[in-house]
């Protein structure tokens, strides 16, 4: 509630210990997710909690918050047992109520009520508006959360936690789908809160953020604490080494199985023109968009939140209907009315919102992947179970999905591992075009490299790849060319070089937004 207020008296001197967790252990089905972890948080510090996917970060956070009981160990805040109101958390798996409004979500469990127990709607709305505005989220507070994009939901979630005004603020990968612009606003809010003496735990896989924001860092790996150190004493190289547990250049495990699966069938259509061509396309939230992607090319699309990158990819992939413009695939006009038509033509979409569109949470890894890979696995109308298990074990190994079994429900996986499963669905032969919307959100550094390798491999086989990512570092690392998108225009492509840094992309986007505003005005 105080994030936006200016003069907050400092209640707790910085440096004093607020939260202490000792000997925390937690096992799921007999397998340790956390083993004897100690953790300590000081007032006024931003404490980065890092580790590979499935290390136990989110589990630790849920235990600190109290929503999940630990098997062993203690958690204390200010020297006494922590209560629910001590800690405000933004969980990794968004936990908003879709059918409630932004304001109702922000105030859930904390409603402003009158003497009769009735909700003070107006008051709540106006406070909610102030809060979301301060985070750069310009939304009517009465908007239902189910209508929001992932990024907007993430911001609402952050607003909700900030509003709780607790002793400890925990942010579990708050920026996984935010762009640089939102990230900067978020960091500003975090620093305000920091000043008021609140201790902040911050989880991220975007390691550059650690150096921008954090004071100290704790790394856990395989459920055990590896180290706690001042960020000032660390540098990128050593951070990566501690997280992965290997030297950065060490080669990953062999990927032969998977390569053999995709390789023989990939049909490189030897067309001279671009594989995918989009001309003057318009649809929900965007218009006048043109770009091309040739076989073997990885094309990036950069944009700010709300420019319609997701809608653009969804329109190409047959999820939404376009209202104007043309799409050609290998020179032939296509207009997919359903995703299955697109897939039939070899156009696959890796969606941004994994819980809604990417996976079926309560189903096993095997069931999720078999559904996508059925073409290779069916015998008659039936599924060849043995072949399925072999294939899926291969996929899971390739992407280093951390799980005890491929029969585990996807919801028991850590967030990053869930994302790997989403990606694994489309690691299959016959793909002509891959539309990737935030393909590595929440994925750790090592696995991210593996995903990049697979993407490159698809490109080598002749597929055209389109990547929309709010992680501008990723665009630079992965893409051959970048387009800058606003909701009403697309730039000419720019070749990616070592100068195409995230800072550069961010400023180019701001320029374009200003330009288009000026155009609008005249």
């Amino acid at each position, binding site marked *: 509630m105080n994030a936006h207020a200016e003069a907050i008296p400092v209640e707790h001197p910085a440096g004093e210990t607020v939260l202490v967790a000792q000997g925390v252990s937690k096992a799921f089905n007999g397998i340790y997710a956390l083993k004897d972890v100690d953790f300590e948080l000081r007032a006024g510090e931003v404490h980065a909690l890092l580790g590979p996917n499935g290390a136990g970060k989110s589990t630790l956070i849920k235990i600190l918050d109290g929503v999940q009981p630990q098997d062993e160990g203690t958690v204390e805040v200010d020297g006494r047992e922590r209560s629910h109101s001590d800690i405000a*958390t933004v969980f990794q798996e968004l*936990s*908003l109520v879709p059918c409630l409004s932004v304001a109702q979500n922000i105030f859930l469990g904390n409603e402003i009520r009158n003497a009769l127990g009735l909700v003070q709607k107006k008051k709540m709305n106006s406070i909610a508006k102030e809060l979301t505005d301060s985070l750069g989220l310009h939304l009517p507070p009465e908007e239902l959360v189910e209508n929001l*994009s992932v990024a*907007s939901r993430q911001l609402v979630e952050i607003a909700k936690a900030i509003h709780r005004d607790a002793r400890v603020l925990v942010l579990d990968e708050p920026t996984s789908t935010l762009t640089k612009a939102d990230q900067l606003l978020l960091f500003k809010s975090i620093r305000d809160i920091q000043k008021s003496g609140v201790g902040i735990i911050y989880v991220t896989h975007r390691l550059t953020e650690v150096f921008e924001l954090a004071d100290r860092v704790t790394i856990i790996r395989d459920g055990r604490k590896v180290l706690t150190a001042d960020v000032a004493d660390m540098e990128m190289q050593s951070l990566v080494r501690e997280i992965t547990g290997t030297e950065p250049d060490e080669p990953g495990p062999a990927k032969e199985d998977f390569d053999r699966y995709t390789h023989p069938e990939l049909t490189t259509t030897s067309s001279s023109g671009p594989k995918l061509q989009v001309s003057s396309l318009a649809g929900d939230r965007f218009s006048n968009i043109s770009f091309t992607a040739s076989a073997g090319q990885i094309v990036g699309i950069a944009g700010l939140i709300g420019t319609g990158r997701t809608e653009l990819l969804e329109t190409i992939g047959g999820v939404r209907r376009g209202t104007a413009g043309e799409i050609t695939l290998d020179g032939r006009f296509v207009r997919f009315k359903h995703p299955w038509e697109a897939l039939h033509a070899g156009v696959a979409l890796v969606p941004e919102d994994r819980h809604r569109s990417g996976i079926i949470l309560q189903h096993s890894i095997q069931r999720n992947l078999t559904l996508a890979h059925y073409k290779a696995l069916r015998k008659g109308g039936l599924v060849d179970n043995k072949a399925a298990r072999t294939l899926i074990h291969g996929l899971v190994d390739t992407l280093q999905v951390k799980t005890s079994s491929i029969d585990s429900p996807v919801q028991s996986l850590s967030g990053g591992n869930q994302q790997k499963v989403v990606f694994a669905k489309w690691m299959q032969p016959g793909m002509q075009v891959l539309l990737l919307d935030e393909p590595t959100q929440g994925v750790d550094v090592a696995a991210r490299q593996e995903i990049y390798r697979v993407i490159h491999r698809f490109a080598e086989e002749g597929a055209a790849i389109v990547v929309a990512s709010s992680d501008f570092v990723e665009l630079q690392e992965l893409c051959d060319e970048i387009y800058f998108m606003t909701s009403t225009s697309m730039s000419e492509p720019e070749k990616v070089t070592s100068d195409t840094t995230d800072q550069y992309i961010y400023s180019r986007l701001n320029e374009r937004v200003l330009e288009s505003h000026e155009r609008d005005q005249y």
Partner: protein
Amino acid sequence: MSATNTRFVRPLWSGRSAGNFIREYFVYIALVALVAFFSIASPVFFSAQNFANVGRQTAIVSIIAVGVTFVIVNAQIDLSVGSVFALCGMVSGLALQYISNFWLLGALAAIAVGVIFGFINGLLTVKLGVPSFLVTLGMLGVARGIALIITDTRPVLIANRPFFSIFGDSNILGIPIAVVWTVVIVALGVIILHKSVFGLRVFATGGNPQAARFTGVNTQRTIILSFVITGGLVGLSSLLFTGIAHAARPDVGVGLELDVIAAVILGGVSLFGGRGTIIGALAGSLIIGMMNNGLVLMGVDSSVQQIIKGLIIIAAVSLSKK
């Protein structure tokens, strides 16, 4: 400010939220259309007396629908209302007969039985983590069995004027008392579900139980309370029945649960929880009651009535899309 407008999204395909809004709207249109149609088709339909009939005939379903709306918005279901309805009536009648023929005792007995069964339904659902479909299906059998056994299937006669006046056949300003009760309960339902903190938590629990819990909502209490509300309203409506029948019967209310659920769903409440309105449920109940009334007034054969009612239900909801 310009950014504000560009940031909304239409959900994919279904137009879910917009559609939902229109759906609620169309239930009311369907209601008005039915009134118009029957007014033309039958000369006696559009009269104060007949509307009083419709109000009386729908009171029981409407009142229970208010409670069941809470339950369904919570993503739960209650199949036991018909049986508990019978049991409430029986216990109330027996209390009046054997303990004291004071109307308030009968009223409290019925409501207490309803509340107890609601509490048991809710408690078993949340504590055993069992689907409420099965819990309440089980309680359906239990309540009916008890209702039949306590008097060995005999009805219990009630002779209590004040009781009849309060729950049965009197009028207030020309409005049947059953309609007055309906209005009071619907108004309370609207306030509690749509204006109170508890109501917000019902929606949260039905919309995303995990998020609600993470945020400190006691979802178990929310669910139990919703069943208790339903139970209490079942008790109340059993009084409206015994108030006009002047007797309690152990075999009444068979299939009542389906009428109520149909009304609630027709009113736009989602079986999957998290969305719906009390007023919609009332409209759903009125549509069904109106059909029952109007088709008889038109002299339609009872088999044909079933077909027409089926078609109207389908038409009413299908119009709601686009």
